[in-house]
């Protein structure tokens, strides 16, 4: 097993796990308006991390497989640039929905739903590129062009995308504990899984008992939630990660249907340096993510210093800050200077 390819696959699985969960958030905004506060509580602190993981994955490809990029650039230039453009929209509408004031003509829900629509398109584009790269759907033999009509007329590529979205819809009930018609959760999940697994097998991608076991486990998560109302978010994360990484490993080293990923590997010096940076950066990243998780789980601090602090009068002497950050006002000459109409203090 090649270390570089393995690292890239792990990253790919993390990226699509985060995107999958974000897809669930987007679905929830549209499906159930009551989910807004619950989803926002999860999404607001984490959307930037999801975006950064996408960048991480893209740069990792550049570090490990730079010679694959000209082919990707020529074939997918339009969808990649479109996704990048929509990425601005995703961030803008999400953050606008967070800070929109109460008497605005744009409601928080409306902005969140626009974000949802944009996110759907981004996810569909990324899923399309992903399935095209690993199966070769829509690409030509010389890797110089991409046929949108060939891609769209292949029912299994569409089945793959639709299946993934249905699974996301089904699991969004579990992730955000949505109650509205929750019978749809197991129905969507199971139908989505059937469609997804059938499509990838028809796209000449390998599936085996691991695929079926993971599909059964995901279906079970949804069914248990429907029957008991109990669910844990971590399970959805883990199931998504394992499913994506299993697809990668079952089709190890395969790109554009018939090509081998190892032929695109970077020279050993840069690839090795890339691994060193990945390890050092990965340790830092893991530490920060664990810290994030710890803070996320921590209850609001009743013992915080912010609740105890007694603020001093602004005008008193405060040492160096008084000298340089806040010198005295303009009474130093014994009189205040003449001021305009807005200058009354």
């Amino acid at each position: 097993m090649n270390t570089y390819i393995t690292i890239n696959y792990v990253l790919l699985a993390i990226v699509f796990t985060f995107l999958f969960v974000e897809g669930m958030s987007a679905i929830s905004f549209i499906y159930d308006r009551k989910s807004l506060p619950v989803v926002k509580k999860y999404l607001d602190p984490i959307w930037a991390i999801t975006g950064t993981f996408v960048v991480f994955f893209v740069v990792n490809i550049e570090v490990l497989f730079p010679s694959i990029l000209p082919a990707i650039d020529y074939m997918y230039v339009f969808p990649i640039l479109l996704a990048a453009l929509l990425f601005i929209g995703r961030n803008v509408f999400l953050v606008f929905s967070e800070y929109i004031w109460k008497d605005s003509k744009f409601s928080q829900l409306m902005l969140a739903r626009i974000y949802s629509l944009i996110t759907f398109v981004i996810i569909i584009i990324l899923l399309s590129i992903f399935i095209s790269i690993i199966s070769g759907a829509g690409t030509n033999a010389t890797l110089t062009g991409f046929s949108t009509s060939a891609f769209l007329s292949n029912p299994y590529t569409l089945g793959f995308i639709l299946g993934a979205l249905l699974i996301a819809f089904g699991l969004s009930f579990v992730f955000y504990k949505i109650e509205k018609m929750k019978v749809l959760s197991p129905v969507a999940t199971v139908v989505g899984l059937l469609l997804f697994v059938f499509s990838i097998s028809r796209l000449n991608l390998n599936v085996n008992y691991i695929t079926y076991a993971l599909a059964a486990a995901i279906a079970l998560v949804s069914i248990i939630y429907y029957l008991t109302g109990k669910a844990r978010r971590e399970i959805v994360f883990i199931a998504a990660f394992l499913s994506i990484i299993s697809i990668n490993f079952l089709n190890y080293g395969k790109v554009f249907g018939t090509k081998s990923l190892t032929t695109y590997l970077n020279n050993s010096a840069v690839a090795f340096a890339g691994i060193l940076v990945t390890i050092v950066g990965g340790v830092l990243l893991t530490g920060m993510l664990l810290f994030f998780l710890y803070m996320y789980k921590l209850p609001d601090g009743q013992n915080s210093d912010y609740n105890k602090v007694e603020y001093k009068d602004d005008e008193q002497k405060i040492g160096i800050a008084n000298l340089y950050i806040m010198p005295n006002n303009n009474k130093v000459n014994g009189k205040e200077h003449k001021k305009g109409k807005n200058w009354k203090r």
Partner: protein
Amino acid sequence: MVNLVLFDAGLMGYSLAVHILLVTVGMTLPIIMSIAEFVSIKYKIRLYDVLAKRLANALVIFFAVGTASGVVVAIELFVLWPKFISVLGQVGILPFYMEVFAFFTEAILLGIYVYFWNKFKSRMKHWLLSVFIAVGAVMSGVFITMINAFMNTPNGFNIPYYLSTGKIIDVNPFAVLNTPTTWVEIGHVIGSTIFAGAAFFLAYFAYKLLKTKGIEREYYKKAAKIAAAIVIIAIILTVVIGIESITNLMVYQPEKFAAIEMNFNSGPHVAEVIGGFLVNNKTVDSINIPGLMSFLATGSFNGVIASNDSLAAYAKGTWPPITVVHNTFDIMVGVGVLIGILMIIFLVIWLLNINEIRGKFESNNFFKKLLSRKIFSDPFDNPLVLRVLIIVGVLAAFLLEDGWVTDEVGRQPWILYNVMTVSAAANTSASVIPVGIAIIVFYILVFPATILFVRKVMKKRDLNNELGAKP
């Protein structure tokens, strides 16, 4: 038929021109925020707490747009210049990769800083996050500048072999971290970015000082003082390293140096050319100061300018657009000097308003009378000074863009100096046109919309409420 190389270059240039404005904000905001929170904790002043909190919220909004814009620029770099990126990937990609972790630091810690503010038992620990956020923001800039330095002075592989065979050998991936121009460029870029960002905020705070009163005014006064202190420190750093970067250009990018000086001469007593245009390989409408270029370069009016610092030493085909590069450089120097003089005057007035210093001067009757003039009153209460600060903010943003144009256009026609031309690196797929146009339109809408949104969010806040409620 659209020239796709020009379209790619135009799209990239336009995206970067907008993006660097967002970067200035994204790099400076955490610094101001961090200082504000520190002062608040250290001296228990609630207004600084409110300032830190407000700036944190503004930072989240700018971060959202800035990071998305950064992704667009990064992806443009990948898809518009596939041959360049292929070489970069095989030699000098490490800073890009490291930048991802700086970016993560900022993204993750900003999330914790803003959304879990009240969960921290210790305020100092919370403040420490702001320091790491600021470091993450600055380090992102440092790593990206390393890539730019690599484009200006490529190293880390066997360049002659690559030029003759197109193959890359003898790769040292860590060499990109220390090209001959890396550290000078980092100092100049980071210094000027923080200067421009702080000047932009200072202008905003100065504007608010002109428009507000009461406690609201006191709040903006505190904010303005932090921004002003950063502007003064950053401009000193920028000027000092800017001079060093010119020396670096003479040695490592002499053709670019010759272009920005519009210099066709070598030997002793070479004149400095100010302004002017290039017509039929001759300089017209310029002001020539005899011997000044020799003096600036060597310290003597009779100092010798080397022949490779003259455009005459290079084939015309490799010259950058001389008139553009030369005039943007002269404008940069001119506006920079103007801002420097204004900020020195501002600093003197500010220092003279510190009681201890003023007291010493006022013991002399002449100075006492002089200091009683309005111009020497607290600069943050003086409408004239505040208006000047607003102009400085606008000029600083212009200066940043102007300096960036000088640097990038000055490297033309190369994307990798003396290794690969822009036209050889460009993606000539026509698919870029519709999305490229959409990106241009989108930026036109998103950038002002974001500024207006932040302004409105801040305006909707009631300072009295914020002072009443704990942050």
